[in-house]
């Protein structure tokens, strides 16, 4: 799995801090940023990228398309 490359982009501005992605992530790779975005809302960041398998469950539960994932599990 070493050469598996997963890029996860979380838009701090689009994120409304609902945390549904954190609950959905089986690997616990997502965390709250501890800072707020321009709208004053908490947002989520990819805290432990090496744990992320690119499964997409966070994307599925995100109501705001704040997460984009590209993975080429070669």
């Amino acid at each position, binding site marked *: 799995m070493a050469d598996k490359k997963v890029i996860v982009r979380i838009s701090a*501005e*689009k994120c*409304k*801090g*609902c*945390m*549904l992605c954190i*609950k*959905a992530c089986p690997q616990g790779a997502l965390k709250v940023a501890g800072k707020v975005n321009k709208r004053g*809302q908490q947002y989520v960041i990819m805290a432990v990228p090496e744990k992320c398998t*690119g*499964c*997409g*469950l966070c*994307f*599925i*539960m*995100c*109501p*705001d*398309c704040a*997460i*984009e*994932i*590209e*993975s*080429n*599990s070669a």
Partner: protein
Amino acid sequence: MAGKFSRPESMTDKTTHYCPGCGHGIIHRVMCEVIDELGIREKTVAVAPVGCAVLAYDYWNFDAIEAAHGRTPALATGIKRVLPDRVVFTYQGDGDLAAIGTAEIIHAGNRGEDLSVFFVNNGVYGMTGGQMAPTTLIGQTTSTSQFTRRPDKEGYPLKILEMMALLPGVVYLERTSIHSPAEVLKTRAAIKRSFETQLAGKGFSMVEILSPCPTYWGMDPARSMERIREKVIQQYPLGVVKNN
């Protein structure tokens, strides 16, 4: 799951006005994913309700119009009859569809209109401040059932899907939820089947989607999703209600 997860083309890039954790955003996305997948974005015309989703056309990258509150299926009927080869759907909340628009939804179904109806059941009127809806559960507190909903006073939660099943013109009905990734994918599949029903001209189809309203349920988004699993599903069981 290799591949790419990103905003579907049928969805605009605009940040929605929906509250954090609201189900509309998820439902919009899976619906737009299906519209992309079926390649129908350029021949789809949507009819938005009055309610939280009245602004949905700002988030949809296809033609859309808003109807007077509750008249959504009637307006959609007008469009579909004039443009039978376009894909026409309504997107409605519990107030729009199951309260003021009850006659319109029943008669659109009874006429067997070739329409897809996506009915978001979140148990309250969100846009106006969390009032009781026809789908509010017994014992649920809302701004207009402050002593909880009591059968002898406020009546029972309406099972509109099961009512629609009695109508011969209605060919496909399913109730799904979005309280977990697996359920979201089932909602996506049901929406796809509803569009396919319309594309095949088989008649009226409707998907009821149980959705959270964290703001007016008074709980955080994750807890709201739990409430669907624990409580709402008991009153509104998931699954295919009709499939001719």
